[in-house]
């Protein structure tokens, strides 16, 4: 090919060109990674906003940090088949694993100080997994993942005006605040409803899509209790109670109810409940048979990522599941790496 004779003349230009290509490549990489955009809402920033001033709950979930594992089954009654071809809706009994939890970043929180209660659930049918994480309010506090981040920042500020400013900018929060104030407290995880809030699309056998949300409604009788009374029962009453309840009265049940959207119902905004009177289909029953402490329990190292879906269920235009998946993954990576801060009992001394 060429003689290296003309090296000196074109050499410098070529070196500059090579340097420019490398610098350009590295800069594009840094940009893609977000290193040049400190304003990008990354999972790290979301987790930083969740972290209390006292520090991160090492080894624990970065939110809903306090919880207890359960195992049981999901009994599908077959009614869901008309909406979704997912195997899990075919009449039958499928193994389930989950976690009752409190919506707080403090694994040692006093039960009566935490308004939101949640349930993580995984159902396995025919090798396909369905994971979800549901909470007891009937709608979410905010409309978008961005405003959830702003809420965390505002509520973490000492400045009393911060929340006022936030509510002005996010009026949907008022409904949630009203729920938090007026909804009855209960003294049991078993007496709570758990709502998925996010919208998904069920695909039926003919390929038709149905926008849905789903809830788990308790069979246990709901006995309201005042927050003060709950506080008197002790800081860790809910976990003691569910252990005792399942031991004494046997399995606890929730009916899974799917609500089907009418055309035009908002699917992208979990802070907007759909109007009353929408068609609902009872698709089965969650049966909680056994409670296990989280430390050594089967739910500990599971990420109840709401985007783990079987065929027959897919995402809608709701932006939350993707945001949650990204943040839960990061939270999982962190807590798995910090396992020695939350040692299993077999592993020995704390």
């Amino acid at each position, binding site marked *: 090919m060429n003689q290296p004779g003309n090296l000196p003349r*074109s050499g410098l*230009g070529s070196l500059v*060109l090579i340097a420019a*290509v490398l610098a350009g490549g590295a800069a594009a990489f840094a940009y893609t*990674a977000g290193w040049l955009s400190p304003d990008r809402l990354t999972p790290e920033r979301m987790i930083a906003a969740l972290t209390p001033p006292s520090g991160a709950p090492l080894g624990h979930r970065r939110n809903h940090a306090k919880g207890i594992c359960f195992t049981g089954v999901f009994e599908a009654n077959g009614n869901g088949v008309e909406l979704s071809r997912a195997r899990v809706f075919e009449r039958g009994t499928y193994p389930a694993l989950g976690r009752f939890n409190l919506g707080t970043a403090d694994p040692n929180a006093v039960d009566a100080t935490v308004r939101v209660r949640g349930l993580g659930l995984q159902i396995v049918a025919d090798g396909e997994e369905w994971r979800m994480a549901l909470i007891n309010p009937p709608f979410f506090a905010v409309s978008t993942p961005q405003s959830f981040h702003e809420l965390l920042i505002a509520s973490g500020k000492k400045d009393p005006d911060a929340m006022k400013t936030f509510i002005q900018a996010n009026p949907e929060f008022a409904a949630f605040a009203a729920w938090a104030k007026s909804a009855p407290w209960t003294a049991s995880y078993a007496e709570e409803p758990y709502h998925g809030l996010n919208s998904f699309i069920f695909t039926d056998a003919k390929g038709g899509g149905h926008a849905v949300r789903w809830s788990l409604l308790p069979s246990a009788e709901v006995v309201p209790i005042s927050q003060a009374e709950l506080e008197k029962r002790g800081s860790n009453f809910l976990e003691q109670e569910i252990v005792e309840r399942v031991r004494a009265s046997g399995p606890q049940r929730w009916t899974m109810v799917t609500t089907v959207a009418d055309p035009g119902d908002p699917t992208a905004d979990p802070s907007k409940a759909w109007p009353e009177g929408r068609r609902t289909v009872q698709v089965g029953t969650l049966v909680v048979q056994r409670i296990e402490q989280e430390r050594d329990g089967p739910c500990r190292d599971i990420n109840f990522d709401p985007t783990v879906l079987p065929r027959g269920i897919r995402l809608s235009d709701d932006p939350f599941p993707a945001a949650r998946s990204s943040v839960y993954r990061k939270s*999982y990576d962190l807590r798995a790496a910090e*396992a020695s801060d939350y040692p299993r009992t077999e592993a020995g001394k704390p």
Partner: protein
Amino acid sequence: MSNEPHRFAPIQRLLHWLMAACIVAMLFIGVGMVSTVAPKYLPLILIHKTLGVTLLVLVVIRLALRLHYGAPPLPDDLPPAIKLGARLSHLALYGFMIIMPLLGLGMLWAAAYPIVLYGGIQIPALLAPSDRVHTLLWDAHFYLGFAFFALVLLHLAAALFHALIRRDGVFATIALLSLRNKTTPAE
């Protein structure tokens, strides 16, 4: 030396460029997806897993072809230290191409995530869940990902050095199209 090939076989060249494009995409998708909470996170991670597993299959084929066809010799006037560097860096590139997808799969298995690729293809788990193993493999996938990118940049710089400055025919050995009539690639 005369009976060694002058260029990589066409299928080797094709695979080199196809995989190069895909690997660069993997590196960018990797760092892009983990830094966003936007809806595009989910399609990106689905592409990352699917393309990553595809690349694992491709590298196996590529290694078999490499053993079968061999590689053209480097120029005689290349200093031995540079030749060694070239060989070691190519070895390392192959190493990354094999290990990165395995680490990606392994860390998901160890975290008990189901692995479902584009088209609903399920990959069965070959590792038991373990937070220790997950962390080890995650760290490796993370740090080696950056090392891989650095090496690709170095490799790119070396290729351009051969093509533009030394003009010693090394670039032509892997070029997709014959550059024979393009005598002045620089300037």
